C-alpha cells in the first residue's frame, strides 16, 4: 500500500488573543488515503474549520500552527514558505468553502475567474485554459457550460454557484480537496445532487477529500472514515460504519442520539446536557467531563487518543467499550 495522500500528526493551531491563548486545534492527527473521504465532524467551535485552514496554510494572525506536522505526500506543509505554499494551493490541494458567494468574485465573469486559476499554475494558451474550464463545469453537471462560462456569479442559483466553486477546485485535478461545509447552505434536493457528483468524482479521479461538516447523516453516506472533534481535539476516529453503529466516546454516543430521524417518533431525544465550553477556559483533563454521563474521578487526568479496538481510536478513560466490542 502506498503512502497516504495526507497525514496530519499532532497538529496544534493556537490563537494568541488578548483574552488568552485559544487552543482551537490541539493535538489533532489523522490520515487520508487516495480516493478516500474523511468526514471531519463537530459542532460549532470544535476546531474543524481551523483544522482545514491549517492544512491549506490559511490561518491568519493572531493564530498560528504551534506544533505538529501536515505531511502531504511526504512533504511537511507546516514548514513550507508562503511562496511554496502558494504553488501547491489551488493546484495540488484545493478548498471548497461553505458560502460560494464569498469565494467567487461578484464583478468578474466565471470564465475570467476560471481561466485565471488555470493560468496561475500552468503555462497553457488561453484557449486551452478555456477548454479546461468548460470541461470542469461539465464534470460537475452544469448544463450548457459554454454559455454559463460567460455568466456572472449572481446569475447562478446557490447550488449552481457551489458547483462552479467545486469546478474551480477541480481545475488542476488536485490530489486533495478540503471541503468546509459545502452543502450546509443548500436545499436537500440540491445537496443530494452535489453529494452524488462529489462521490462520483472521488471514485473516478482518486482525489482524497476531507469533508468538514456538522451533519452526521451526510458523513454517514459519503465518508469512508470519520474523525469526531470536540473542543479542539479529535475524540473519536475510525471507520464510518463502525463509529456510527457502535460509538466508543460518550460524546459521539450523545451526538448520534441527538439526531432526530434515528430515534423513535415522539419519544424524547437522548440529549447531551449543558453546552460546549469556551475554548478560553477549558476544564482540566477531559473537556467533555462536565457533560458526560460516564465521567468519573480520573477524568480530571487528560485522556490520550488510544486504540481501544482494532483501528478504533477514542480519547476517553471510560469508553463504551463492551457495547462496541460485543456487536
Amino acid at each position: 500500500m502506498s503512502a497516504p495522500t495526507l497525514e496530519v500528526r499532532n497538529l496544534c493551531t493556537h490563537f494568541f488573543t488578548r483574552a488568552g491563548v485559544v487552543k482551537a486545534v490541539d493535538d489533532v492527527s489523522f490520515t487520508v488515503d487516495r480516493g478516500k473521504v474523511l468526514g471531519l465532524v463537530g459542532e460549532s467551535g470544535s476546531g474543524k474549520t481551523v483544522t482545514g485552514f491549517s492544512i491549506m496554510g490559511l490561518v491568519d494572525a493572531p493564530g498560528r500552527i504551534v506544533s505538529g506536522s501536515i505531511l502531504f505526500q511526504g512533504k511537511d506543509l507546516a514548514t513550507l514558505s508562503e511562496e511554496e505554499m502558494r504553488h501547491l494551493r489551488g493546484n495540488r490541494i484545493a478548498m471548497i468553502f461553505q458560502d460560494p458567494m464569498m469565494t467567487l468574485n461578484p464583478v468578474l465573469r466565471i470564465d475570467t475567474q476560471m481561466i485565471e486559476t488555470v493560468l496561475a499554475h500552468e503555462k497553457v494558451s488561453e484557449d486551452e485554459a478555456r477548454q479546461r474550464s468548460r470541461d470542469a463545469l461539465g464534470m460537475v453537471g452544469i448544463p450548457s457550460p459554454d454559455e454559463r462560462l460567460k455568466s456572472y456569479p449572481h446569475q447562478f442559483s446557490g447550488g449552481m454557484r457551489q458547483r462552479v466553486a467545486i469546478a474551480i477546485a477541480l481545475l488542476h485535478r488536485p490530489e486533495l480537496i478540503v471541503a468546509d461545509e459545502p452543502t450546509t447552505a443548500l436545499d436537500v434536493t440540491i445537496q443530494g445532487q452535489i453529494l452524488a457528483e462529489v462521490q462520483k468524482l472521488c471514485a473516478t479521479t482518486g482525489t482524497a477529500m476531507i469533508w468538514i461538516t456538522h451533519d452526521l447523516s451526510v458523513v454517514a453516506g459519503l465518508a469512508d472514515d470519520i474523525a469526531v472533534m470536540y473542543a479542539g481535539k479529535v475524540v473519536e476516529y475510525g471507520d464510518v460504519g463502525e463509529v456510527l453503529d457502535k460509538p466508543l466516546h460518550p460524546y459521539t454516543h450523545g451526538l448520534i442520539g441527538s439526531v432526530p430521524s434515528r430515534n423513535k417518533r415522539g419519544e424524547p431525544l437522548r440529549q447531551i446536557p449543558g453546552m460546549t465550553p469556551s475554548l478560553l477556559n477549558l476544564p482540566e483533563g477531559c473537556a467533555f467531563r462536565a457533560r458526560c454521563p460516564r465521567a468519573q474521578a480520573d477524568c480530571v487526568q487528560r485522556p490520550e487518543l488510544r486504540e481501544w479496538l482494532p483501528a478504533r481510536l477514542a480519547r476517553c478513560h471510560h469508553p463504551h467499550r463492551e457495547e462496541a466490542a460485543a456487536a
Partner: protein
Amino acid sequence: MSATDAEIYATRSFTETEVPMIELKGVSRRFAKKLDVAAKLARKLGADVKEEVVHAVDHVDLRVRKGEVVGLVGESGCGKSTLGRIVAGILPQSEGQVLWNGQDVATLPGEAARTAKLRRQMIFQDPYASLNPRMRVADIVGEAPQVHGLIKRGGFDEYVDEQMRRAGLDPAFKRRYPHQFSGGQRQRIGIARALAVQPEFIVCDEAVAALDVSIQAQILNLFMRLRRELDLTYLFISHDLGVVEHLSDRVVIMYLGRVVEEAPTERVFTAANHPYTRSLLDSVPRIGNRKRAFATVKGEIPSPLNPPSGCHFHPRCPLAFDRCKVEVPKLKAVDSLHRSACHLNDRA
C-alpha cells in the same frame, strides 16, 4: 402527549361537524415589485412593462386541530415561512380566509380579534435577529403580558421567573442582555417570550435550524415537554425532514407556493404519493445509510417569479406526462387521511 394519543390524532380524518383550531380557505399571498418612475413612464408611453408578482402562497387550504402538531416541509422559496406568518396573524393574506376556531379572523370584533391574535404566537429561526439586543431578558419576556394585562399588579418578577423557568432558563439571568447568552439559550428566550402571553397555538419557523445538533435535541425535547404541559398546538415549519418526522403527527409538503401532499407522518415517510415528496425523501441523507449512491432529483427549483405552467413540479418530475404541463393538479383525497396533488392519481 403519549404515542397512542398521537396515533389517534393522526389516524382520524376530519368530520363534517368538526371545527379545527386553525383553518385556511384558499389563502394566497402575492408580493409585487412596485414599478419605479422610469418603468411607469415607459408604460405610459406604451411599453409592455408589467409589475413582477411572486405568488408566494397560492390557494392553500390547511386545517390544524387542537392538540395536533403539523409539520410544514419544503425547500427554500416554497412559501412555507410566508404561510406560517399568515397563520400566526402577522402577515395579511392577499386572498382567502383564515378561520380561528371556526370564525373568520377578519370579521371578528375588536376584543375577540385581539385575543385570537394573542393566542397564536410565533418562534423564529434566528435567535440572534429575533431578540432586541438592547432589552434585558426580563423585559423581552415580560413586556407583552404586561401590556395585555396578563400580569397582576406587583407580580411582574414572579411572572417572568415562571416563564423563564418553564423554558429552561435560570431566572437569575433575567437582568442580562441577549448577547450574553449562547444560541440555544437565546432560542429559549424566544420560546419564553412566545409562551408568556399564554398562547394555544405556536408557529415554529425553522426554530431549531440554526442550532448545533446537541442543542437542537435539547430544544426539541423542550417543545415536546411544553406541548404536554400546556396542551399546545404546533405548526412546525422546517426543511429538515428528520426533525419533522420526529415531532409531527401530520405532515404538509409544499412546492413553489402550493401544497402538494398532506398525510399522517407515518404515511408520508412510508407511502408517499406525490413524486416530489418521494424524491425529497430520497435526497435526505440519513445516518443509517452507509456509503451509497445519493439519489438525485434532476434540475433546480424554478424561480417563483416565473413558475412552470400546470403542475409546478413537471420539469423535474420523472413521471410527468402531457397533462402536467397544462393543467394545475388539484389537491385531492387519496383516501380519508391522505391528500395529494398529482394527475397520476386520476390515471389509476
